[in-house]
């Protein structure tokens, strides 16, 4: 489990993510997904938690191959995943250790496999939260 409850730069970050693959808010733009990913990275760095992060600069990277070679990485962040998502990436995520925490930001919902958790992100003036959506 990844729990962050801290005030960072005037924003109270209050999120909890469980192990496994989670998608964050598939539908909207501008609701704080990238800010959330930045906060998670900072938290991991501060607390010596191994993480790997991908974003729009990863389109020319073989993400699936890199994921397949990860050892000891606890948190994997896939921002802007529409740009590099593939069946191979799906398979690589599924093959990660059971205690890995994976957060995915993607808009093309039809490309996702079933079984992923879904979180609704809310960012108002001074608070960033993530609530699991029960489907």
């Amino acid at each position, binding site marked *: 489990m990844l729990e962050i409850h801290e005030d960072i*730069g*005037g*924003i109270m970050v209050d999120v909890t993510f469980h192990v496994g693959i989670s998608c964050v808010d598939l*539908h*909207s*733009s*501008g*609701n704080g997904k*990238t*800010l959330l990913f930045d906060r998670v990275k900072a938290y991991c760095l501060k607390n010596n938690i191994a993480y790997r992060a991908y*974003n*729009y*600069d990863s*389109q020319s990277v073989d993400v699936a191959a890199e994921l397949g070679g990860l050892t000891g990485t606890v948190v994997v962040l896939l921002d*802007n995943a*529409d*740009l590099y998502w593939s069946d191979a990436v799906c398979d690589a995520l599924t093959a990660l250790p059971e205690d890995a925490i994976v957060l995915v930001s993607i*808009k*093309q919902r*039809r490309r996702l496999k079933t079984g992923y958790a879904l979180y609704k992100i809310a*960012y*108002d*003036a*001074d608070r960033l939260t993530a609530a699991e959506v029960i489907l």
Partner: protein
Amino acid sequence: MSLAVYLSRKEIPAGMPVVDRNDVYFNGYTTLGTSDFEQSVLLGVDQAVRISDYTFRGRTAALGALNKSCLSTGTKTLLNIYQNSDICFSLVECGDNALDYLGDLHDGNVLWEHPFFYLGRDDESCDIICRDRHFENLCDFMEWAMEVQNDAGDS
């Protein structure tokens, strides 16, 4: 002029640049303009208000002026389209609330490879050309685009 929408890469005119990484293009070339459209997108998608060509005020007052690179990819995509009518920008990372603003664009080029139906506003008007058809209603266009995609998937 109308907004040109391409449903596949092969429809894009030869020689026209195509940008998938809207963040990278925006951060490097696009600024925050003063038009009504740009102000409307900033406020409607990101709850942001323009300060200068390069900065805006977001929803957290304590953060002060933020660099334009902190805007959402949806907003960046819309401003890229608005300011660069000779380049085709992919909509792949636009959320539903950003796609609403397609109806306010009357120029530019976009690639929409995976269309889906969504309309979150009352105004259904648009000015879109796609496969030589002109659309003035966003609902009609989205329904038609989905049918085209489904037909392509069936064949």
